[in-house]
């Protein structure tokens, strides 16, 4: 297929719906991740760490905005996507449904969730869908800094057998499997896109994520799961588990409290 808007429009409705699901999931996840990062602007173990979360939150919201804008090509109104949807409609990845309770979870979020998001974007870039190429390239350039910071903190917290190590281990245990499942579910929608050459197959994504993260994750005794585990709690429509982000985060994401002050 020609990897343009016209080419995608000529594809089956199933392929178009699968691509829309993928982009919406990435956009929503980045929006939620930005909120979770911003929660730790104050109260981080160091001022520098807190400031870094502020910068990363800014990046994630910028990426979300570009991805929502890209969904215009699928008939969506970006303003509706950003400001009008209920929590149950969010396609963000499960590990971000609740606030990240401590710095160890935040670092696990940077390494695991943000790392998996970056890999998913790389898969889109390799797929060569033209309207997203330049935007994704810019996003990945910004993501390099996130991963450098995440790796440095991961090594620091995982050193030794103290509380930092234990908390990081718990955070990774909680977040790793559901993150990988959302990034590379191996369900019909995902593989349909892979068959059309628009993204990488789930098996390739999992392999690459393992190659990238396992050297770090092994420090807390974890490994990227290589097999897909879709259970009864998989919501194929949204490409995530059943459930949704807590209401408070969605109220913030939508900007409910400042709705009367919107500037367009």
């Amino acid at each position: 297929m020609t990897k343009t808007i016209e080419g995608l429009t000529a594809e089956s409705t199933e392929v178009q719906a699968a691509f829309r699901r993928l982009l919406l999931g990435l956009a929503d996840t980045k929006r939620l991740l930005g909120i979770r990062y911003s929660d730790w602007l104050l109260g981080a173990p160091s001022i520098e760490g807190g400031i870094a979360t502020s910068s990363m939150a800014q990046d994630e919201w910028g990426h979300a905005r570009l991805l929502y804008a890209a969904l215009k090509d699928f008939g969506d109104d970006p303003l509706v996507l950003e400001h009008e949807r209920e929590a149950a409609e969010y396609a963000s990845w499960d590990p971000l449904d609740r606030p990240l309770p401590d710095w160890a979870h935040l670092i696990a979020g940077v390494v695991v969730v943000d790392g998996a998001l970056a890999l998913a974007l790389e898969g889109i870039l390799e797929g060569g869908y033209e309207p997203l190429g330049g935007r994704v390239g810019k996003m990945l350039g910004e993501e390099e800094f996130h991963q450098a910071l995440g790796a440095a903190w991961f090594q620091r917290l995982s050193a030794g057998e103290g509380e930092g190590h234990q908390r990081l281990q718990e955070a990774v245990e909680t977040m790793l499997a559901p993150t990988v499942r959302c990034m590379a579910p191996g369900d019909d929608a995902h593989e349909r896109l892979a068959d059309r050459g628009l993204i990488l197959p789930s098996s390739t994504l999992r392999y690459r994520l393992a190659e990238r993260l396992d050297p770090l994750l092994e420090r807390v005794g974890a490994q990227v799961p290589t097999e897909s585990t879709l259970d009864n709690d998989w919501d194929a429509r949204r490409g995530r588990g059943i459930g949704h982000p807590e209401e408070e985060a969605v109220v913030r994401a939508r900007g409910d409290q400042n709705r009367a002050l919107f500037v367009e």
Partner: protein
Amino acid sequence: MAELTASRSLPVVKAPSSDQALPAHVQSHASGGRDLWTDPLPERPDDPDAVLLELLHEVLDPELPISLVDLGLIYGARLEGGIAHIQLTFTATACPCMEFIREDVRDRLVRETWIEAVEIQEVWDPPWTRDMISDRGRRRLRKLGVGV
């Protein structure tokens, strides 16, 4: 060690005005450098595309006092009919100054009688990097103590 008492007089430091506080080589204190913008041309120039770039050279970035062109944010400028089509990128996907920059670009160009409207196309390909700053921009930034 001197004891601090309520009666002790402390020196009063008067803050400089905003003009005095800025280095001499920062010449503009208005958004987009608009206090330095030149007067509109009397008529449509022979080479409007080149002139569009010259005009955008007058528009300063809101955070760094060098022009958008020198910062490497302008990817293209052409006039079709009376419409100025500008290809613009930003240094970051969530640049907080996006709206200021768009406004400054529009405001500078529509001062010209031969420009009826401005269409800004946001582009991200190729992604902006510091390599896109011009030599002149680098020299100006170094004067301001910004390493690039």
